[in-house]
């Protein structure tokens, strides 16, 4: 039983990281922390790919003159290289948006931002329930 659990420990790490990341994205109010959570979530997927690309005792797939070694599957690594680049782009764009939000709103807290929006909305449309009073 314990062997079944611990034998796939790397999948457990993937699973735990995934849940931590998703939890941070959903529960935290700070926009910056959400980006951090998103990065953790994406990293867990990278680990998932690397895990099933690994073959026990396999080496890097480079042709050598030394007999016929076992190779690990290189394709997941290539896919993850692409996914990492996508992740960097996502993080950079998200951080840029956070900085821009901070400079226009003066806050990166979700609740404060929606409060500011609500106040402005009522200032702009004070009589929104009575549109045709003219």
């Amino acid at each position: 039983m314990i062997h079944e659990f611990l034998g796939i420990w790397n999948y457990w790490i993937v699973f735990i990281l995934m849940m931590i990341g998703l939890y941070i994205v959903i529960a935290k109010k700070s926009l910056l922390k959400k980006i951090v959570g998103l990065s953790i979530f994406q990293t867990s997927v990278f680990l998932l790919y690397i895990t099933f690309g690994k073959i026990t005792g396999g080496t890097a797939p480079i042709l050598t003159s030394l007999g016929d070694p076992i190779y690990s599957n290189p394709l997941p690594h290539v896919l993850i290289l692409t996914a990492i680049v996508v992740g960097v782009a996502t993080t950079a764009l998200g951080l840029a948006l956070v900085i821009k939000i901070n400079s226009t709103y003066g806050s990166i807290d979700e609740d404060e931002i929606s409060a500011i929006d609500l106040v402005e909305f009522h200032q702009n449309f004070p009589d929104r329930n009575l549109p045709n009073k003219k």
Partner: protein
Amino acid sequence: MKNNDNENLETQENPILRISAKILFTPIILFGLYVQFHGDFGPGGGFQAGVIIASAFILYSLIFGLRKGHELLPPKFNFFLLVMGAFIYGFVGLTTVLMGEPYLSYNVLGSTKQSGQHIGILLVEFGVGLTVSNVMIALFNAFAGFNFKKIKK
């Protein structure tokens, strides 16, 4: 954050940091080029090399200030190189199309299939390296050069 162009930061007067940055700058780029050109027959390639080369420029900007970094690599030229890297990738593909083969089929680039693959991978990885390193530098410049004074108001 106190000063936008971080001219008066302590790092610039610290001789250890200044001298080690100057010493490290060239070997980092050399190592980056090694990883770059090793990429077509061993571990390495444009992505890794691009990040390594970019780290040399980022280190320079960190130690000597963003203004000196801009003097070393002007932002406009940085953007031009970034676009050129992607262009190299596209043009290698279009060259093979013009030679009558599908997009990115490197085989026709050389006299034999092996040399064709060699040339194709080398060129594409060069474009990738150019783009990645310049994107990294551009990201650093964009975030480090953001005018935080606006927030204070």
